[in-house]
């Protein structure tokens, strides 16, 4: 797809997206997938994620025209969107490793077990004041902090 074709595509509304522009359909599917993995079932949250994902993906396509793996680009966009939001909520990095993101996801799933935070998913300004505390309270603690010791092997 050329940059000109991308520009034409962006001007179309998602409702009129056709088979020659697969991005809206894939974006919706990926947004739904990521939202489900966070236990979020809010329509507004889904639309926020879809819009963010689509915007990021189009932005990437604009700077990297040509044959692009749409699904991978949208997947990465979803990852960046959600990780960025979680970092803002928790005030600490969550994207430095897959384990960090999984831990944050688990904490959100536990805090959102009753669905009370679904509407606030990806809300950037306000609306998440208590979410950080709720996630801290449910964060997994598999092991205590490491107190490293060097231990000498014995000899006979």
């Amino acid at each position, binding site marked *: 797809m050329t940059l000109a074709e991308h520009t034409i595509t962006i001007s179309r509304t998602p409702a009129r997206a056709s088979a020659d522009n697969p991005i809206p359909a894939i974006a919706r599917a990926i947004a739904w997938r990521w939202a489900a993995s966070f236990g979020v079932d809010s329509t507004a949250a889904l639309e926020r994620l879809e819009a963010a994902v689509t915007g990021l993906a189009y932005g990437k396509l604009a700077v990297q025209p040509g044959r692009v793996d749409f699904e991978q680009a949208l997947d*990465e966009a979803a990852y960046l969107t959600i990780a960025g939001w979680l970092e803002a909520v928790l005030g600490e990095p969550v994207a430095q490793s897959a384990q960090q993101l999984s831990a944050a996801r688990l904490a959100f799933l536990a805090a959102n077990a009753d669905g009370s935070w679904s509407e606030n998913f990806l809300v950037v300004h306000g609306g998440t004041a208590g979410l950080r505390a709720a996630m801290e309270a449910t964060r997994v603690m598999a092991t205590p902090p490491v107190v*490293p010791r060097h231990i000498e092997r014995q000899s006979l």
Partner: protein
Amino acid sequence: MASARILSEHGVAAAARDAVGRVRLDGRGKTGRRLAFFTAVAVATVAGSALMTDVLSGDGLTATEASIVILFTINFSWIAISFMTGLVGASLRLLGRDPISLSAIAQPARGRAPTTRTVVVMPIFNEDTARVFAGLRATWESVAATGHLAAFDFFVLSDTRDPDIWVEEELAWADHCRALGARGRLFYRRREHNEEGKPGNLMDFCRKWAGHYDHMVVLDADSIMAGTALVDLVLMMEDNPQAGLIQSAPAPTGRRTLFARILQFMSRVHGPTMATGLAFWQLEDGNYWGHNAIIRTQAFVECCHLPILSGRPPLGGSLLSHDFVEAALLRRAGWQVWLVPRIEGSWEDIPGDPIAYAVRDRRWCQGNLQHIRVLPGSGLKPISRLHLFMGVMSYLSSPLWFALLAMSSIAAFEQAHTAHAFFPSSQSLFPSWPVDRSQDMVVLLLVTLGMLVVPKLLSCAVLSLERDRPAAFGGRIRLWAGAIAEFVFSVLLAPVMMVLHTRFVATILMGRAVGWLPQRRDDSEISWGDAMRFHGAITALGLAWAGVAWWISPSFLVWISPVVAGLILSVPIARISSSTGAGEMARRWGLFLTPEEVSPPQELARLDELLKASPATRGGIMRLFSDPHASALHGALLPTGAPTLRISTEVTLIYEKARRLGPDTLTREEKAKLLSWPVRPLDQIRGPSTPGTATAPGRPDCAP
């Protein structure tokens, strides 16, 4: 007997406890005790050896007979130690004396709160997850009931390699954490690489987290301990700063097969006697049995990173039986190691059938024979060396017995087929009549048998004399009936174990090794086919030996019949004794009852409840494909770090296979590779969602 002071199992408070309820572990008269004990052992051994020499040398001592005397002496010394230990133990129990202080038995004042931090660690390896966490939770709840839970953390140290069990462990841990409100108190770690097995697992824990704790209590996957027992152990460690390790005497329980019930019964009847006797002469030079013991973390870290033996397995490499060596190293560094038999509320499982028992023994045999290499280690205390020697002899004695019996058969053959020389030299004027020492031989046999049996009889007698205690075993008559039945069973089983141990020792010395294998911990019956496969050769040996004995002399066959009977009957014994039906029948008859069966302690009753309530499975790896909670949990528990290009590539290919053929087609190794990274949900595996795009499993760290 009216003057004898006999205590109930719960003991009374007395002199060994000071004004604030501390219990000092202080063995008075150590030198005198050991002098008396080992002198008695030496006298018994010399007497037995002399009697055997006298019996065999009636017509002069042949080379074969001399070999018999040597083998007999080595094995008899082993029996003498056990006999004297039982004798001392029974005497102390009868008198109601603590084996360490020789005063009346004392428990620490339980109202005291521990002032130290203790972690209960449970190393596991491909175990039954439901059983592991049910036991751990029952222990947790029991500690909570003491009011001292704040002093304890719990830590599951997994070395599991099976991917489905790995996932089950994570899910079970999270469920129990939630149910107990144990976040930040009940921990779980799965080791990425399980070098050096269980000792390596514990050492990994020590390197990272032991600094948080003053003590650690090591439990096996099938262990369970009462909260009161744990608190008692902690208080004893606090009261005795020189103690590096205190070992409780765990009681086997929980199995329903006939084989296991017999072992559980005799362990409950006779185990306390032997533990008491051992504690009497070991004192602070005690041994470690690998679990249900409390260890001072500082001492363990300083002393117990085990050496690697030079050479390859089976006699080189990592030490399989680590516990004896750890105890020896603690003693070498000056830490005390105590066996305290009066700690109640410590339980373990045992194998449910003779084959599983033998499989476990195979590993222990290799581990104990490795101690031959440890025996000459520098700086080890003499009693530590004795423990290691006894561990070696517990298996090496079997080939010695086997050789002794084989030599006896040869000697019987020689005697039966060699004409007696009435005039051994041409100068002798008077005939030399053949000397019949068969009665002396019978006496020697009865003495040997007696030394094996008398301690058990004394244990039964001690229990019978207590007012209320026999009821815990079904009453006095059933107690004695069970003891007699156990004696018959052990006479039949002993020659089978002798042959098996002989085979184990031979294969190990020929260089065939075993590693760490998960122990079978269920009550499943042995089929007749399995019994034949495992014991067929033993049966054939028994039949051949009986035939040869009959050919030598019918009276010799009678003499050796207890040995060949056990060998010939090994197949039906294995099959029948592995049956839970036979075990249940014995239970209905009131045989082999234990206190845990008659009046189950709270902890064991709770364990049963938890096991019944546990799901058969939480879904294993398939659950991760469909449950976001489960997949997030798994991802959160993984070690931090990015995958290598190789791992990324392999995982990508495995996802492609899962997409095309279904995730249920994945092999165990493929599942394990997938689990090394956060797992993608099924709907993402099944992509791509539009035609024309490349197959896009994406970066692993994009997986939601």
